[in-house]
């Protein structure tokens, strides 16, 4: 791979060539730290939540950790790169989450769940939510978290998708009570340690074994589709002096994309740290709150959502008021962290799709995905990446349904090329 680098021109030339975007990145970082101290005066844990969410956004951006592509590229290109990253992240998180949950509820019994764990109802709502979400994210070209970090990178289509997500969440709020009566009220929250009487040890082993199985299936799938990594001809960078070594370190963190497996592992650790501070990573709660606020200001307030507040996951904070809430810190923190990542990499750029078709696709995909995320009480992060490590059955059902939706989505986007 040929990359232009200015190391050969000497340090003074290098200094002059510090990209303007890196300077802006520094300013954003300073502003974000300032905001952290402001938030801390509202509530102490807001500051660590905000900073960890920024780290998560930075990681998502650096490793282009796109859950939509993880599912889509399996069907479209036979590539499992990002899916393997997700599996690694889930395995890391599972162990950490289990320890945290053990400290909260040492002996798992029926109906006693560790606080803040993403143990969601399992049933038709999970399946329909997953199918909608999987289809919508493939149509839009990014899931909820993917759209958040792409918004920060300057992808205008992702802003349109975010608009769609808010509309989808608003439509769901208006119809939630129907879903509640029809199915969710009868759905059980299945927690592997208690429901199957496995305890923490058994539940962790079962989850890890299942993850390993999926990993092997992905490997088999890649081999079947004839995918292989060619020898990449990377131009060797000079790394003799301390300065050059530092530069290489800087570039591998801030400029070059991270391998998906690294991104997944780091996200897994961040998820654990967030749960240690207060709650696992989840981004749709704040979006749902935002969507409800908009609807209320349009004099179309959503009806009181039956049963939702007791379900946990991304729904737990819907009632929170004020600007600086937990979910604000987490969701907006992801955007801020992604922005810092994109700027340091000199990758921020407004990108406008050239055909009108793409805007429609981004919007419609967003609406369908938003509706699905409301129904499943979370997105690929809240209802899967934070739910499987919570040893919840819902995360697995949601993940499987996502695959089904993504498969259908791939059929459609191929025709829209």
């Amino acid at each position: 791979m040929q990359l232009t680098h200015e190391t050969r021109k000497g340090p003074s030339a290098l200094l002059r060539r510090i990209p303007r975007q890196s300077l802006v990145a520094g300013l954003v970082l300073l502003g974000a730290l300032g905001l952290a101290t402001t938030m801390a005066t509202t509530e102490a844990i807001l500051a660590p939540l905000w900073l960890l969410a920024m780290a998560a956004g930075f990681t998502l951006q650096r490793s282009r950790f796109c859950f939509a592509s993880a599912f889509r590229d399996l069907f479209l290109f036979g590539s499992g790169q990002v899916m393997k990253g997700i599996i690694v992240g889930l395995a890391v998180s599972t162990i950490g989450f289990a320890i945290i949950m053990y400290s909260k509820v040492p002996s798992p019994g029926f109906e006693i769940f560790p606080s803040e764990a993403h143990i969601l109802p399992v049933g038709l709502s999970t399946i329909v939510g997953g199918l909608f979400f999987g289809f919508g994210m493939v149509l839009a070209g990014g899931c909820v978290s993917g759209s958040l970090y792409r918004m920060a990178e300057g992808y205008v289509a992702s802003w349109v998708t975010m608009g769609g997500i808010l509309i989808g969440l608003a439509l769901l709020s208006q119809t939630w009570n129907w879903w509640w009566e029809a199915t969710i009220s009868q759905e059980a929250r299945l927690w592997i340690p208690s429901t199957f009487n496995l305890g923490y040890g058994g539940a962790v082993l079962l989850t890890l074994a299942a993850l390993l199985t999926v990993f092997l299936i992905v490997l088999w799938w890649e081999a079947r589709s004839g995918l292989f990594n060619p020898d990449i001809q990377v131009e060797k960078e000079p790394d003799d002096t301390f300065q050059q070594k530092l530069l290489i370190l800087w570039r591998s963190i801030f400029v070059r994309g991270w391998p998906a497996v690294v991104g997944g592992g780091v996200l897994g650790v961040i998820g654990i740290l967030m749960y240690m501070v207060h709650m696992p990573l989840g981004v749709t709660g704040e979006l749902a709150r935002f969507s409800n606020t908009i609807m209320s200001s349009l004099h179309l307030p959503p009806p009181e959502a039956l049963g939702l507040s007791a379900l946990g996951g991304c729904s737990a904070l819907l009632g929170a008021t004020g600007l600086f809430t937990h979910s604000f810190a987490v969701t907006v923190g992801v955007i801020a962290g992604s922005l810092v990542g994109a700027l340091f990499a000199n990758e921020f750029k407004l990108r406008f799709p050239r055909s009108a078709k793409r805007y429609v696709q981004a919007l419609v995909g967003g609406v369908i995905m938003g509706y699905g995320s409301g129904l499943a009480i979370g997105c690929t992060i809240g209802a899967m990446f934070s739910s499987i490590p919570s040893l919840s059955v819902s995360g697995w059902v949601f993940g499987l349904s996502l695959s089904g939706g993504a498969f259908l989505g791939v059929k459609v986007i191929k025709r829209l090329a």
Partner: protein
Amino acid sequence: MELDVRGEICPYPMLKAVEAMKKLKGTDTVILFTDHAPCLSTIPPQAGRYGYTFQVEEIGQADWAITLKPKEATI
């Protein structure tokens, strides 16, 4: 052939590159212009799969030209 996919959303940059390689079957070089950074790591494995070598050149800020050459070509 030249393929300008700047501004395209995921997965079209990659999909169009793959379709071009499939269609040309190694008869021509594909030069892909893209502003989509993920392409830099996702296109190489696909190039290998269809018998192409690849080379990335940064031609501007978040702007790349990816040259996909058939492996056994005399072009």
